[in-house]
């Protein structure tokens, strides 16, 4: 497996970004929703600190990923109807936007509440905006609903990937799987149906 993407599969770095961010943002989102299960205020403080640290990591990875995507390019799109190609592009654009917007909205929410923002107890980051109690509820809503929106977009993303894998028998999912090998291209092997 090469580090860079090739014409028939995503490279190791693109795959690492994809799966690390997927795991981190979903895990952290569910963790964020379960925050109220903490059994003491101090545990909630520590959970929130962990949630923020993971979120900042996602933000950093997302920005690096966008840079890498710009430098690395991508495997060409598989043949599909035009509407499917455009839908895929729209879904991908939303996903890229959300993996930046969700952690950023958390940072904004944190700034509005006036709380410290520390990355795994190593260093602190500044507030994006001054403390503003009137925005607290709204900022929390934005942060949470962006995650629900991500889940909605993921239904399309995961659904389409599985549809390609299971019904179309193409390489759309295989070429992004960590250890996936692309199926031989149909035109080198003849008709596979």
């Amino acid at each position, binding site marked *: 497996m090469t580090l860079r993407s090739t014409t028939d599969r995503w490279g190791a770095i693109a795959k690492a970004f994809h799966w690390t961010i997927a795991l981190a943002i979903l895990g952290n989102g569910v963790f964020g929703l379960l925050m109220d299960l903490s059994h003491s205020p101090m*545990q909630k*403080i*520590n959970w929130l600190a962990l949630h923020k640290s993971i979120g900042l990591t996602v933000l950093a990875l997302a920005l690096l990923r966008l840079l890498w995507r710009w430098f690395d390019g991508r495997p060409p799109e598989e043949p599909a109807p035009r509407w499917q190609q455009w839908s895929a592009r729209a879904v991908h654009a939303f996903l890229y936007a959300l993996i930046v917007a969700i952690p950023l909205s958390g940072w904004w929410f944190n700034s509005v509440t*006036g*709380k410290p*923002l*520390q990355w795994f*107890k190593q260093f*602190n980051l500044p507030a994006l905006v001054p403390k503003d109690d009137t925005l607290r509820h709204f900022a929390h809503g934005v942060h949470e609903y962006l995650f629900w929106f991500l889940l909605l977009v993921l239904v399309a993303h995961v659904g389409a990937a599985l549809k390609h894998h299971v019904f179309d028998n193409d390489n759309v999912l295989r070429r992004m799987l960590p250890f996936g090998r692309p199926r031989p291209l149909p035109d080198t092997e003849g008709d596979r149906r």
Partner: protein
Amino acid sequence: MKRPVLSSVALLLALAFPGLAAATDYTVQPAASKLGFSGSFQGETFNGNFDTWTAAIRYDPADLAHAAFDVTVTLASVKTGDSDRDSALPGSDFFDVAKFPTAHFVTTGFRRNGAQVIADGKLTLRGVTKPVSLDVTFQPAAQGATLDVDGVVHRLDFGVGGGEYADTSVIGADVKVTAHLQLTAK
């Protein structure tokens, strides 16, 4: 706290030897005075202050032997600019104002370290009494004086934020106490 015997002695000395330094009793001007502190939470310094406190100050830089500070702080008057923190501090995990409504600092003696005057005293907080020392800066003025003190209190010495809150990687161990007092002579 009044010390009638000491005051009388000072008064007698002053009468017997006019011009001899004698420690003066001062009244604190609350509107122009502030008792504050700063701690740290998740790597960030925060500042707080107490709105309600009283201080009896007797001081003369030339007569440290007769100087005395006696300060009582109403702990429930704490403000730090964060509603979560301000609702937690009076609770049983921190100041526990239901059991210990006030903190009390009284000096046991004054000394000089070079040019710096240091007030040694005892702080009683949350039912625990421990020695605490404060750096003292006294500035005589036309109508009285200003007095600035600062020192460090180790919160865990007094059980402020014990249990789960004892984690000093989240809540700093040291709390810096600073006070600025505007004084008028009695």
